[in-house]
């Protein structure tokens, strides 16, 4: 028996995203992932040296605002910076500059689509998003022999966005879908590269259960799971934690509020969450407004200027691809999910060939396959959108067959892998060289068709007698004798000729 019928899982996510700025949040040091040269991207400000002062990076703030607007958040007229105070060696000032009670955005939402036999849309509430500085990184002696710990402050002071969802997520798949959609949105906005390996996207999950009992429902104590370093890991951890909490509840009957909030780690290797040693005492961050920074006034004009600069979001793009280009939901999702450049590439191909379905087929099959095999990004794909568009245009205009098109595509791939990408003229050149042009002219086909009809009186009679499928053999013979004939054209001519007999 599964218990999912008698409890529901309740999940809220806290997502930390590093912003794609040139410099850090409060100083001019470069913001770059650089694990091999520790402590080179530092200055008195991010080292927290005595006397140094922070100055807000306006670009970072604008990226944050962009995100807040994209997440449908309320943007207040005034926001401020607070100090979150705690001691840790990777935090050189002994406090983190963050936002406490007046974050730059709150009360938003993000719609996600849960794929399945019946796809459904769910709206996940966003409690708040705030901006803060990241800490550095500590490196401890893993051997357990008590060697020295080291601190790298390259990351200290880089801009970090914290996005907190409402506990609106009810399944591991929903959590995964939310993170996919959020990542897609943030990469579309060019706010973050969301690279989990480099730590530019990190996720914690708050999980508990609502269990149906005779008297109604009871909630289990909330557990925060940390160290989730992949979307798959988030899914697995929630899955595991739900079962674990149910088991614990059956054993102890402990409810929300009866024990303090627990923090657990996620062991991806063993696939289990594990209790982390409780902190020495409950932490009191002693938040207060940072007197070194002035509050940020967000004028309507500034906010609207940012809003006006927003590009089309992934959800809107999917919708448009489905309605304007008549793509299936699946094709639209696949294309949009590849990122903004891929979707732009798609639209340029459509513009050049005039057939969105054809373009979608080629992109989701041939182009994606080549990208995967050759480990290419769309930006470095050897066939430009114009060239692919020209090729597809020839197919749409029945100048080459789809099969011939694949031959041209392969030739273009070969020809373009060097430093010189092929131009549009290469399409017709290859078609010519390989003699792939459809000889659609009835004049050229006429003698061949005459000969085939004459040599196959029995089949002609069958067709005439109503065995329509027999015409395939005739088409095959004509095709064999021509090089690039359009089978559709051949079929038409044959049908007309037989009907006229």
């Amino acid at each position, binding site marked *: 028996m599964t218990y999912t019928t008698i409890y529901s899982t309740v999940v809220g996510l806290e997502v930390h995203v590093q912003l794609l700025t040139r410099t850090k949040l409060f100083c001019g040091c470069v913001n770059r992932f650089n694990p091999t040269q520790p402590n080179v991207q530092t200055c*008195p400000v991010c*080292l*927290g*040296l*005595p*006397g*140094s*002062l*922070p*100055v*807000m990076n306006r670009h970072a703030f604008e990226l944050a605002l962009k995100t807040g607007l994209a997440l449908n958040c309320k943007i207040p007229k005034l926001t401020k910076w607070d*100090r979150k*105070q705690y*001691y840790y*060696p990777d935090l*050189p*000032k*002994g*406090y983190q500059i963050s936002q406490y009670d007046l974050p730059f955005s709150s009360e938003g939402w993000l719609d996600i689509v849960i794929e399945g036999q019946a796809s459904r849309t769910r709206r996940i509430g966003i409690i708040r998003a705030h901006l803060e500085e990241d800490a550095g990184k500590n490196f401890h002696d893993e051997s357990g022999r008590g060697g020295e710990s080291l*601190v790298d402050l390259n990351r200290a002071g880089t801009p970090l966005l914290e996005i907190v969802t409402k506990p609106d997520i009810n399944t591991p798949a929903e959590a995964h879908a939310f993170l996919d959609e959020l990542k897609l949105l943030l990469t579309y906005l060019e706010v973050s590269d969301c690279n989990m390996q480099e730590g530019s996207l990190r996720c914690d999950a708050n999980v508990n259960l609502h269990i149906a009992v005779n008297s109604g429902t009871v909630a289990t104590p909330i557990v925060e799971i940390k160290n989730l370093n992949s979307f798959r890991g988030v899914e697995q951890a929630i899955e595991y934690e739900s079962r674990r909490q149910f088991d614990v509840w059956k054993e102890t009957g402990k409810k929300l509020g009866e024990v303090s909030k627990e923090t657990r780690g996620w062991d991806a290797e063993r696939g289990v969450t594990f209790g982390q040693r409780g902190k*020495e005492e409950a932490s*009191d961050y*002693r*938040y*207060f407004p940072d*007197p*070194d*920074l*002035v509050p940020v006034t967000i004028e309507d004009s500034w906010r609207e200027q940012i809003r006006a600069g927003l590009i089309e979001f992934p959800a809107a793009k999917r919708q448009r691809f489905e309605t304007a280009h008549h793509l299936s939901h699946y094709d639209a999702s696949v294309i949009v999910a590849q990122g903004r450049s891929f979707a732009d590439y798609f639209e340029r191909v459509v513009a050049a060939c005039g057939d969105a379905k054809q373009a979608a087929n080629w992109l989701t099959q041939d182009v994606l396959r080549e990208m995967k095999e050759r480990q290419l990004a769309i930006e470095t794909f050897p066939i430009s959108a114009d060239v692919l568009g020209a090729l597809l245009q020839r197919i749409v205009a029945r100048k080459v067959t789809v099969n011939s098109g694949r031959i041209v595509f392969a030739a273009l791939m070969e020809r373009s892998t060097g430093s010189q990408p092929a131009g549009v003229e290469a399409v017709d050149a290859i078609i010519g060289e390989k003699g792939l042009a459809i000889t659609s002219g009835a004049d050229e086909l006429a003698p061949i068709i005459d000969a085939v009809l004459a040599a196959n009186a029995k089949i002609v009679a069958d067709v005439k007698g109503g065995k329509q499928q027999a015409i395939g053999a005739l088409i095959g013979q004509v095709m064999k004798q021509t090089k690039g004939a359009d089978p559709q054209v051949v079929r038409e001519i044959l049908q007309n000729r037989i009907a006229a007999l």
Partner: protein
Amino acid sequence: MSILEATASQLLDAIASGTSSAVEVTTAFLNQIERHDSTIGAFLHVDRVGALKQAAFVDEKRRTGKPLGKLAGLPIAIKDVVCTRELPTTCGSRILEKFLPPYDAEIIRRLRDADAVILGKTNMDEFAMGSSTENSAFQVTRNPWDPSRTPGGSSGGSAAAVAAGMAPLAIGSDTGGSIRQPAAFCGVVGMKPTYGRVSRYGLVAFASSLDQLGPFASDVAGAASLLEVMAGHDPRDSTSVDRPVPEYSRTLEQPLSGLRIGLAGEHFAEGLDPEVASAVRAAADVYRSLGATIVDVTLPHSKYGVAAYYLIAPSEAASNLARYDGVHYGHRAAKFDGLIDMYATSRGEGFGPEVKRRIMLGNYALSAGYYDAYYLKALKVRRLIRNDFDRAFEACDVLLSPVTPTPAFKVGELVDDPLAMYLSDIYTLGANLAGLPGISLPGGFSKSGLPIGIQLLGPPFAEETLLRAARMFERETPWHTKRPTLQVAS
């Protein structure tokens, strides 16, 4: 002209005209330090080599006809709370005893640009917390007028250096009166500019929303010249104000006509020494004789000033001093057991008792459950105090008040009574809470021969008015010309 008794303006003229060289001037002050600082204890670090090198550079510049900066060749003493590249910056604390900043504070950059000569770093109460310079971890500074007395604090080293003729100019920082109170105790001019007038970049923070750097000089003109160089917008300090800096030294001699001087009843409170009170009243008479009108104003919330100040300043200090954890720089305990103990032991060894007291006060006030009752309430009081001043400045141009309740007290007299020590800031900390400019200038002497200061306060960015008003008084009185007689150590 005796170099040691000359004013900053006279020295500037002498160097510019070639009557004296920068090296001669610098050498004279260095020698004075050598002769007297073993009794006074004003300096924590004297940069003899660096100062003479810079002085020679200025002389060379003059010889070759290159344009000279506004403070060319003038030696300046710097409170040890200001970061100086490769020069010790201890803040009077063990925890920074061996700290060498890799960078210059913005005001040091400005001083160097103006061709000033950095003489050295002066003693102070640890992290600027104190009113007597007795909280320094390294030495006691003595009042040049009476070595049994304190020079005030926390910028006691800078004030004593100027009073003892060991530097013509000095820099201090003022969080609750730390420039004005020692200026008054030592009989020199000291000014706290409007919050945001001078960049705090490189000023080691005590209480960020109250700290402001300012000048010490033997006369108002010296303070004006130094402030002119220090002031100005700095994009590296978000609280620095982008507003043009008037040429204070140029307008200084112009008296203000129709000047309205405000006197607040709250500034003549219980505990005010009668000699100080009569010096302030005498100053009012001087202004009246110069055509000013005296108006009575009221600052009803000033009585909550000390309480609000001693919540806000320690709260910010507790946070600002969290960075001294022994991890990245500064003192680290030799023996400890684990990370938490490394923090505790390093800080326990590195900080003195007054700093620890304020860190505890501040962390208490910011703790969950107490924030609203203490810190937030103090911020509201702060706003009311500012409103009081705004209203008062509708009726008057400057406020005239005492600087301190008493003249300089004895070394050791208040060390065991922190509350009494805190109350010595009662007339000065209002300007910090309200972000206003204030100047302390010599206003007389007690019967026992100790200097008495008077204070002028103005609305935001009224530095020019304050300096001109101060100069009006100075021109009519002899107090700023008096010099202490120094005992030469045997």
